[in-house]
């Protein structure tokens, strides 16, 4: 494997590369791009993304386990407060912005989009600018935000015709099968994925929920013995448990899926900028960070504590970083809006939320928070002492 490929894998670059190709393609040869995107969208968004969500679920399972990086209810409560406040702030700004114009009726249904936080993207941005101490909190906040958005989206926007009875029954069968396999000590991940996963996919499809989430209720049942204390790291090479093997087997196909997701969904016509674009961007830029910080202030006033050695300056940066919707916002947009100009506007807004990470970096530097504080301390330590004459 070349170093460039390794770098791209480690930094989740396949998605932005796919997005960049899509943007160029859609704005230069729109007819061929949209024909391509329309044809492959089902396979990518409804089937392939099941793998991505499974890998993300694996991260959560590993990190939320008793020995994981995100364990303890105190951390969870603070993250829930921050995520809830962030979502509320973003939604209020989104809807408030729309009220100033006359397109609210068309665009208002897209409000769950602004709940989205791109877990992988924010993780890597935070790794470069934030203190390591806030990263578990940041990741947990991102996961809770997405969970809020997903629940709302799934309830508000059922996909296709709903056969709730059959769908719920199939989903129950899928989960039961996973439980039985776990009880019977099935150590390969394949039966979990091929049997339970496939049944779960059809179950969700019939229920009107997004089938890309098919493996989310199944992955927690995969036997696990690894002890991963950090987030977004590879399974240990020697680990032979099903969850670790699942990760090793599907990690690279997962990146291919992300590339395809970017290629299929990020192709937007740039002159399709509209009210929805600005509403999403402003909600991410102002509403979500403000809501997050206000909720954190209330939570601290109510007795919860910030993570140890974390300052409010760190939290300002975290609140900004966690407002980057990107991948998840694109995904949420495709669920909220069907193909057409409104979806195009929303996707442009989702792409613009990447800018919040740039802003977060500037703010971190300005406030000397996170890594910039550490660098400042190092610089002071290494500077020659001034001796007056």
């Amino acid at each position, binding site marked *: 494997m070349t170093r460039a490929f390794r770098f791209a894998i480690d930094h989740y670059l396949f998605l932005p590369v796919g997005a960049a190709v899509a943007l160029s393609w859609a704005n230069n040869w729109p007819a061929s*791009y949209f024909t391509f995107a329309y044809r492959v969208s089902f396979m990518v968004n409804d089937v392939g993304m099941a793998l991505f969500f499974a890998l993300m679920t694996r991260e959560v399972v590993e990190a939320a386990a008793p020995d994981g990086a995100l364990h303890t209810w105190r951390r969870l409560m603070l993250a829930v407060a921050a995520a809830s406040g962030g979502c509320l702030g973003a939604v209020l700004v989104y809807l408030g912005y729309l009220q100033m114009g006359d397109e*609210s*009726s*068309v665009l208002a249904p897209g409000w769950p989009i602004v709940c989205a936080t791109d877990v992988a993207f924010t993780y890597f941005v935070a790794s470069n600018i934030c203190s390591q101490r806030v990263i578990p909190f940041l990741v947990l906040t991102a996961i809770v935000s997405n969970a809020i958005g997903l629940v709302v989206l799934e309830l508000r926007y059922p996909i296709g015709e709903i056969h709730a009875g059959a769908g719920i029954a199939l989903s129950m069968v899928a989960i039961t099968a996973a439980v039985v396999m776990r009880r019977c000590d099935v150590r390969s991940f394949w039966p979990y994925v091929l049997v339970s996963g496939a049944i779960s996919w059809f179950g969700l499809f019939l229920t009107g929920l997004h089938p890309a989430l098919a493996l989310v209720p199944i992955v927690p049942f995969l036997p696990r013995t690894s002890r991963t204390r950090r987030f977004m790291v590879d399974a240990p090479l020697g680990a032979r448990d099903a969850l670790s093997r699942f990760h090793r087997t599907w990690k690279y196909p997962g990146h291919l899926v992300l590339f395809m997701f970017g290629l299929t969904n990020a192709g937007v016509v740039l*002159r399709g900028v509209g009210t929805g674009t600005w509403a999403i961007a402003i909600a991410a830029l102002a509403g979500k960070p403000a809501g997050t910080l206000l909720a954190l202030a209330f939570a601290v006033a109510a007795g919860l504590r910030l993570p140890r050695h974390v300052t409010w300056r760190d939290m300002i940066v975290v609140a900004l970083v966690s407002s980057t919707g990107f991948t998840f916002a694109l995904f949420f947009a495709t669920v909220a809006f069907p193909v*057409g*100009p409104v979806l195009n506007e929303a996707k442009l807004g989702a792409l613009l939320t990447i800018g919040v990470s740039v802003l977060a970096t500037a703010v971190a530097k300005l406030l000397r928070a996170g890594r910039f504080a550490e660098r400042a301390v190092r610089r002071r330590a290494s500077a020659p002492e001034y001796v007056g004459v």
Partner: protein
Amino acid sequence: MRLLVTIVLGVLGVLPGAGGAPTQSSVRFAVIGDSGTGDRVQYEVARQMVAARTRMPFELVIMLGDNIYGHQGPDDFVQKFERPYKPLLDAGVRFYAALGNHDNEHNRFYGPFNMGGERYYTYTVKNVRFFVLDSDYLDPKQRTWIENALRNAGDDWKICYFHHPLYSDGGRHGSQVDLRVVLEPMFVKYDVNVVFSGHDHIYERLKPQNGVHYFVAGAAGQLRKGDVRPSEMTAAAFAQDQSFVLVDITGDDMTFEAISRAGQIVDSGVIHREARP
């Protein structure tokens, strides 16, 4: 004076273009898009429509969306729809609306828009079937509906209208290629003859695309002056003033005129319906 002359000539039936007495089989209608500003120019376009009706007595008006801009309370429906088109409404002309991005979706329940409470619907006038779509929200259910509706329609003429144009040389928005990829194959497969859209605040007639004739008529209230970037698919365009379109379908011929706010005919022609294999 100009109006008087128009009325006299209209009564005598000597005006050129789509005029003359209606025949049993003719279907005549006006096309307006992006009309509902409630300002002076919308009223002036409406007056031209009234004047045009004296020589070509159309019985319906199709609205291409953005029918009411801004606030959408009861007073707005009066100021931006009922008052400007009062002479037409009083004469029994029926309006059939499509929803645009500036319309509240609840406007489909407004009686004079004749939407029957639906975002998308179809109706027939003599041998012409109209299909009205909601291009803001082209969900799978609507896609299935339009495919079935087109498949089952045996009418001589099939005309679709909705807000966002599949083809447009408008500088602000242009062609909605993502929608085109979904809708155009159906239009071609099921022999749709003509498609009207708005959104770009111009008038444009495109050269037939895969056998389908496309019009952009989004300047019955709004206008983006000069906002046309002519291309190889442009047949005619006008973006110097507000405008609307008059159509007369008789037998296998559809005669059309695009008329400016000043009453000038800025484009006209005949589309002959080809029997497709």
